[in-house]
């Protein structure tokens, strides 16, 4: 037999046939893995020549979402201790609701428009929408605070929510800007430079002093040479200005604050010593502020708020690495002070990225903690309504080397909806707004790309798309309260 093989097939052919046979055999080998050894844990990924061949192109139509979620969760490597069938049921129940909630929209218009789901007992959504509608008649501005993680860092998404709302309802100014920020050069909206500050974040809560923590999530301690400058970027030829700039700080001793507005004369402020939060208010047609300080002992800076008197403002309070759980560290007194100086009508919580980790689908601890966090914040900010913005899509490579939605994300979306229900606030499904399953992969391969190649973070262009969806859902609600009350179609 071997002789026949050798005479009819030359060396190269025999080599390739043998290699091919070996590879096929290897794809049937049992899974080899080792866990918790000196070298760590590892599972050998198998050669799967046939997976390249099989083409499973599932259509991502929203109506099939039910089936797909069950399929994904059923077929994935879930390494949790909670009984799988229980989790599947929970998750698919809540996601079935998501589909129902959105179905009337998909019937109304051809676009997938994601509705705000109001689980509050105090009609938060209608109240929010009414005040938005009446903003022009009102003398005080409306503020929406986005608390999030690196997903919205560098003003991603919030910049576009801001400009859309401001073009509809008025308002000028980027709102809150922290004293320093690692992503400051990435912001498109302002030129922000700083030097000589030490930053403390709520994520490093062991190092930070909790009495200085509130919504912004950071506080900054200056050295004698500390400086901070903000300049509004020109949009085309237009130099945008705003009418008010407030520096927020605590002055425990006798710090002197020097500021130049619009590169003009230096103004000096010597605020009274106090352990409470204070502000230095500058007014006029402001496009740039430059701060420097003397006698910095006992001084703690938070940030600057740039706005106008009327209109809508969107503040971005993002903290890299935060899961939302660390919001339990915020200080009550400081929060009250903060609320009286910069009152937020809406707080949007955009978290989940740093929680939805591979192989974990049991988020009951996270759920309990977040419900407690929201209850606590509700107490500190009594006149504020809360919106939970669900986690966005995130993709990982599957066995056939394609980028697919992590099943843990789908579980997380379900959990966040439940948090909204239990904490009685509003929920908005970011995952659906992106396009649902595998939308992150679409974002990355889009031309121009809408997300970074880590398949986790969107970029400014992607943020704009999601912002459009967010604001149009909001505007739809505004239109809806104009109509006569309709019967519940659910």
């Amino acid at each position: 037999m071997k002789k026949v093989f050798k005479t009819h097939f030359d060396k190269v052919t025999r080599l390739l046939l043998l290699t091919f046979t070996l590879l096929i055999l290897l794809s049937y080998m049992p899974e080899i893995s080792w866990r918790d050894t000196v070298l760590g844990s590892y599972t050998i990924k198998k050669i799967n020549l046939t997976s390249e061949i099989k083409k499973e192109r599932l259509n991502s139509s929203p109506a099939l979402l039910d089936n797909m979620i069950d399929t994904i969760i059923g077929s994935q490597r879930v390494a949790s201790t909670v009984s799988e069938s229980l989790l599947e049921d929970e998750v698919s129940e809540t996601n079935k609701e998501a589909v129902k909630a959105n179905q009337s929209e998909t019937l109304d218009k051809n676009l997938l428009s994601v509705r705000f789901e109001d689980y509050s007992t105090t009609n938060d959504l209608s109240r929010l929408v009414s005040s938005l509608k009446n903003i022009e008649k009102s003398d005080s501005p409306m503020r929406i605070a986005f608390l999030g993680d690196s997903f919205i860092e560098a003003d991603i998404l919030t910049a576009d929510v801001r400009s859309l709302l401001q073009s509809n309802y008025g308002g000028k100014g980027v709102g809150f800007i922290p004293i320093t920020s690692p992503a400051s050069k990435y912001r498109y909206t302002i030129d922000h430079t700083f030097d000589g500050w030490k930053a403390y974040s709520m994520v490093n809560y062991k190092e930070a002093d909790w009495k200085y923590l509130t919504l912004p999530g950071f506080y900054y301690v200056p050295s004698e040479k500390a400086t901070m400058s903000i300049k509004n970027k020109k949009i085309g030829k237009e130099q945008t200005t705003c009418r008010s700039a407030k520096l927020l700080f605590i002055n425990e001793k006798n710090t002197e604050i020097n500021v130049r507005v619009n590169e003009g004369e230096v103004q000096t402020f010597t605020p009274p010593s106090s352990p409470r939060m204070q502000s230095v208010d500058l007014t006029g047609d402001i496009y740039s502020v430059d701060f420097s300080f003397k006698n910095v002992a006992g001084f703690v800076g938070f940030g600057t708020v740039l706005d106008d008197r009327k209109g809508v403002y969107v503040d971005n309070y993002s903290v890299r690495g935060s899961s939302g759980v660390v919001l339990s560290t915020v200080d009550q007194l400081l929060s009250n002070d903060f609320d009286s100086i910069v009152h937020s009508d809406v707080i949007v919580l955009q978290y989940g990225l740093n929680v939805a980790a591979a192989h974990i689908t049991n988020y009951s601890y996270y759920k309990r903690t977040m419900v407690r966090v929201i209850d606590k914040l509700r107490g500190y900010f009594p006149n504020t309504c809360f919106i939970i913005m669900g986690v966005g899509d995130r993709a990982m490579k599957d066995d056939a080397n394609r980028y697919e939605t992590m099943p843990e994300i789908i579980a997380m979306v379900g959990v966040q909806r439940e948090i909204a229900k239990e904490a009685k606030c509003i929920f908005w499904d970011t995952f659906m707004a992106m396009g649902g399953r595998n939308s992150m992969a679409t974002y990355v391969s889009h031309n121009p790309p809408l997300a970074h190649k880590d398949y986790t973070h969107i970029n400014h262009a992607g943020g704009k798309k999601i912002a459009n969806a967010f604001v149009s859902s909001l505007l739809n609600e505004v239109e809806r309260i104009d109509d006569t009350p309709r019967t519940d179609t659910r």
Partner: protein
Amino acid sequence: MWQQEISSILHLLKYDPLQPLMFNSGFFIYFFVVVILGYNFIKNDIKLRSLYLMLVSFFFYYKSSGVFLAILIYIILSDFLIARKMSSCSDSKIKKQWLLLSLVTNIGMLCYFKYTNFFLGSMSELFGGGFQPFDIVLPVGISFFTFQSMSYSIDVYKGKIQPLNNPINYAFYVSFFPQLVAGPIVRARDFIPQITRPTLVTDQMIGKGVFLIISGLFKKVVISDYISVNFVDRIFDAPNLYSGFENLMGVYGYALQIYCDFSGYSDMAIGIALLLGFHFCINFDSPYQSASITEFWRRWHISLSSWLKDYLYISLGGNRKGNIRTYVNLMLTMLLGGLWHGASVVFIIWGAWHGLLLALDKLRMKYIQPCARSNMRQFITRVANTVITFHLVCIGWIFFRSDSLNTALQILTQIGNGINSALIPQFAAGYTGVLSLIIIGYVLHALPKRCEEFASQLLAKQNISTLAIIISIFVLIIIQVRSSEIMPFIYFRF
């Protein structure tokens, strides 16, 4: 039951724009095994061999570019006929016109597909903008096979080779699948003599072929793809989000990535051709070991740079028209060489940068004579020159890779703003995989040629079973890296 299997196999044979055929895809393994099986039976019949490989290559091109197979066939027919006309022609004027027709056809095709949007877009920018780019799909490998076909026409025109009588042989030469899609650009005078020689695959060739295929795959999948997805791409996407040190590492990473990507694919092409009994010239010769830019261009993408030298630089006059003209020719050649890589201003800047460096190097060699030195000093000088040359090349890569001039300047600014050495341990901890691969890559690159030859010889001596096992283990390793999860973003304080 078999219906589905049969229909999915048939579906596989169809062109799928979302999964074009490449050497590192699963389908290619099946393809190559089937090709070799058939080849085994016909390889001793020279005529049949050309026909078979031509058909196989056409199918390969169809699987990578679909309907653009027609363009390939058109170029082949056109240049085949033109070459015949040229050689039977005695009037040099008419001969020149035929050559012009060939050049215009090839360059015209290339320009239409590759540069229309770029050209029209740039023009419209000058006049106020508002140009909407056309949806022109680029046929895969068009930059390579047009250049290859032109080398044939020009060589026939100059009388350096005789035109082929058999169109199948010519079609085989242009379309031969290992080099069709990403080079090397094979010269007619190097390949055509091989078309009529009997098939001979020695153990040496098998050893070298297997070595090149394995090392090519390793370079492309394990090094290049991994460090690009998990690191380099992110830096170039948003340089301002990263510190100077990370940007610098991104540049070093890219220099390695592009070398591994390009040379890996070339190596696989050369290796596959060897297994079929054909010899291609080496395309990359450890270019980062160069101690000068001139040397770099003798070691980097050799088939392209020698094509540009022989057919563009020399045709423009080379160094035979006086000093100034020499430098002009040099610059022009490099600018066009840059543009060949892609339709964007960053490629032109890259070409100009290398043109400038080459010109300066030429001046240096003219006026600065090396003096006799001790061995140690010579060695140190060479190492210093290598490091300098490498960094000059890296500066070029910043422009080459950036999606816009703006991005390139951002990277240079970030690096220029200083390198914070405190970040290095953090970086090493956060990007262990990427850093290890970068170090491994450069160390392997620095090894002398003897090591490659030693490995090839070693493989040549093995029997088939051992070789098959070695290849399978390699494939297993490659799969581990290829399917690995994407590393998450790492953030550092800076």
